[in-house]
């Protein structure tokens, strides 16, 4: 909690410095923050519900055996596919990852999930194709899937 408070204080101090220098732009910052909150609010509520339910699921003894089954190659595969399909901002992916880490899931698999979540986006591939071309989109996403797994395996070994 203290680090969150410190973080907020530092940001507030920086903001005040900018606000005093240019109050018009300072107001734009507030408007932008308010609009961001409005845009992410539904997702935020979904994630909060998911975090509560995850605790119930992970508190079940039977799930532990289930998780062990997914700690090998199959876990990496599930994580990379899940990450590619689901589309959530990074700052929300981290608390979910933290919850999984607490539940005893292999850090390597969490790294795969996070890397895949942030780098591979099946839903936005049409935008990528339109702007940068089919080859760019396909190769970048395929490489990202491959490297997400490699990054996770390396992190799992080193962690």
């Amino acid at each position, binding site marked *: 909690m203290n680090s*969150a408070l410190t973080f907020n204080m530092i940001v507030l101090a920086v903001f005040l410095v900018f606000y005093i220098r240019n109050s018009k732009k300072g107001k734009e910052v507030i408007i932008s923050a308010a609009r961001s909150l409005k845009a992410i609010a539904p997702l935020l509520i979904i994630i909060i519900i998911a975090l509560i339910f995850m605790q119930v699921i992970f508190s079940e003894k039977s799930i532990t055996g289930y998780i062990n089954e997914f700690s090998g190659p199959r876990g990496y595969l599930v994580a990379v596919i899940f990450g590619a399909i689901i589309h959530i901002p990074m700052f929300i992916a981290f608390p979910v990852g933290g919850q999984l880490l607490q539940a005893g899931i292999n850090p390597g698999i969490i790294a795969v999930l996070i890397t895949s979540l942030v780098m591979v986006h099946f839903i936005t591939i049409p935008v990528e194709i339109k702007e940068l071309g089919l080859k760019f989109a396909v190769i970048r996403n395929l490489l990202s899937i491959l490297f997400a797994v490699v990054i996770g395996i390396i992190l799992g070994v080193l962690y």
Partner: protein
Amino acid sequence: MIHKTKNKHHKIILAIITIIIVATLAISPEFYENMLVSTDYSSIILILAYLPGFLILMGLFEVWLPQKFVMNHLGKHSGFKGAFYSFALGSIMPGPLYLAFPFAATLLRKKVSLFNAALFIGAWSSLKIGEEIFELQFLGLKFLLLRIAITIPFVILTSYIISRAHLVRESLR
């Protein structure tokens, strides 16, 4: 630019979840009662505690680092300096990944190299300075440093492959 996040799908999912919860609440209220009492809310409180500072920080990045400034700045540099700036700006710019694609296309039109444009997308997607505070808090310093140290070489490798094979639509080459 987080406010450009499209939330139509999220609203639909949230509506479905609400319906399921309300329906099951009628069947077994005890389940929810037990769940809400025994839940550890610390991680949820932490997310909410970081949120105000995070949103203001993103707002600061957006207002004081306008897209025009970033594009003009990137266009001027090449070589190692250009690559460094591409990576740094990609990781500072706030917003969802699909905003990085039109941005990168504009960079290419401004004669920024394909390697640097791909690096910009790689940095945008894998390392967001403003969001690292969440990684530090929820996954720890060790995880954060390891993930970044391992990810950066692969982002560079991906950009190298894309630029060597000229994997971009012809009008942008």
